[in-house]
């Protein structure tokens, strides 16, 4: 407590503190030693495996790395653009689906059935199949002429992820305790105001870690639009590999995707830890 003015520490406590300090120094040293041994073993194992020089040359070549970097980085810009548009699309479509699913009014019944069907089916189809269905099916209809594969890819990503996000949002909305709704309604708030001012803000705090996790996973899944022929980071790497028969460009693409996601992963970890510590202090949000 900081309101103690004179701090007197007994010998027993001093001895305990000294012991704890010794213990913690020892555990730090132990973890450093074990890490060094682990890294050493992996390095030893790799460098002594018979194929290592070949693997090193075809995956970790500095020369090909430098050569592929500009094109792959260029491709990543397309991934970023797709990602931004997809996030907005998913927020709108996923939010709408979730709101439809929690309505109870009779008028909304057909929409509820459609939303239920959509989220059920969409979560069951592999992402790649959705991409093929949209990417090759829609142009096949011949309605819109030639459509940029990046746009079709974005549509597919939005359709697939909306189903997941809708379910996360719905769980969040329903997770807010019914007494909060009762309390808001008893103040005279309409059901719309209750949703907007009381339920949604609390739900978003609760599900923020899950939403961020889906966002991180979406960040790398936008790389799948390469299967439709859009020249994104993955496709650019593929092209470079096809030219040189060296796989280093894939490593380049991986590193770029990792760099893209690390800030969000750290942000997510930080926010989750913050929520947890707040819950420990007895808060509800």
């Amino acid at each position: 407590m900081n309101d103690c003015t004179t701090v007197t520490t007994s010998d027993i406590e001093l001895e305990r503190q000294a012991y704890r300090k010794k213990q913690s120094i020892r555990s730090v040293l132990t973890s450093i030693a074990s890490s060094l041994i682990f890294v050493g073993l992996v390095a030893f194992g790799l460098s002594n495996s018979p194929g290592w020089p070949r693997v090193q040359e075809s995956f970790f070549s500095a020369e090909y790395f430098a050569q592929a970097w500009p094109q792959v980085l260029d491709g990543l810009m397309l991934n970023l653009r797709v990602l931004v548009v997809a996030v907005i699309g998913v927020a709108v479509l996923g939010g709408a689906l979730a709101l439809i699913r929690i309505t109870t009014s009779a008028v909304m019944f057909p929409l509820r059935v459609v939303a239920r069907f959509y989220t059920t089916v969409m979560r069951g189809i592999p992402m790649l199949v959705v991409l093929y269905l949209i990417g090759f099916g829609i142009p096949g209809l011949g309605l819109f002429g030639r459509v940029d594969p990046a746009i079709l890819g974005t549509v597919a990503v939005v359709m697939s992820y909306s189903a997941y996000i809708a379910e996360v949002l719905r769980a969040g909305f329903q997770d807010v305790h019914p007494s909060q709704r009762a309390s808001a309604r008893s103040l005279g708030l309409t059901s719309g105001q209750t949703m907007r001012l009381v339920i949604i803000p609390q739900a978003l705090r609760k599900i923020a870690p899950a939403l961020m996790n889906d966002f991180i996973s979406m960040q790398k899944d936008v790389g799948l639009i390469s299967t439709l022929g859009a020249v994104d980071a993955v496709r650019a790497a593929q092209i470079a590999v096809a030219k040189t028969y060296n796989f280093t460009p894939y490593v380049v693409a991986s590193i770029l995707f990792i760099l893209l996601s690390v800030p969000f992963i750290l942000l997510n970890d930080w926010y989750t830890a913050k929520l947890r510590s707040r819950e420990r202090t007895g808060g509800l949000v």
Partner: protein
Amino acid sequence: MSESASAETVLRLDGVCKRFGSNTVLDHVSFDIKQHEVVALLGPSGSGKSTLMKCVNLLEQVDDGQIWLSDTDITDPRINMDRARARIGVVFQQFNLFPHMTVLNNVTLAARKVFKWDRAQAEKKAMSLLKRIGMDHKANEYPDRLSGGQQQRVAICRALMTEPELLLLDEITSALDPLLVGEVLDMVAELKDQGATILMATHEMSFAHKAADRIVLLRHGTIAENGTPEDVMDNSSDPETQAFFRSYHS
């Protein structure tokens, strides 16, 4: 069709019934609350107290009978229920403050969003209410930083903010540490002195005896007793009523 309540009757229940499936929770309950009257709703757990409170606040729909709030039949499905709810202040057992809003925003929410006051006016009123209970220095704290008693007193401020015609207090001390019960009950006594009209469900028998003008005792969803605290709690000739109050003394 019963005639509308007279001018000074704030709440009138007329043959109110509520069933959950085959379970009849309220069976033709009728009583009045006059202006400035404090009525304590007593009864064992499961006697229908909470359900009755929820029906009055329109959180549950009655299965028969009428509830009048002054001249409005609030069980009429054609009325604006949000407006009717806004005329009644409710305080819950579990406080139910909004955890994502500061104390000040909790207290001003209904004034701003339902009654459309501007923020400055609402905050001025809220601060004076908070000041009266010595909580003005906590106005910008979040509810999780307050003790249970403080949260409950803020919840009472929130209910009082828009000067409701009737205050419903639903076992507001049941979730509190015994040491904190006193501070909340003191606040209720003060509201009574200021002329509030209150219907309170409670298990605080000595407080009910002291503060209530009238006791309504529910048993199996019907009114077993309806009279002054002395008549009901001390001098009832009904053996079941005597047994009920004795259980609180032992």
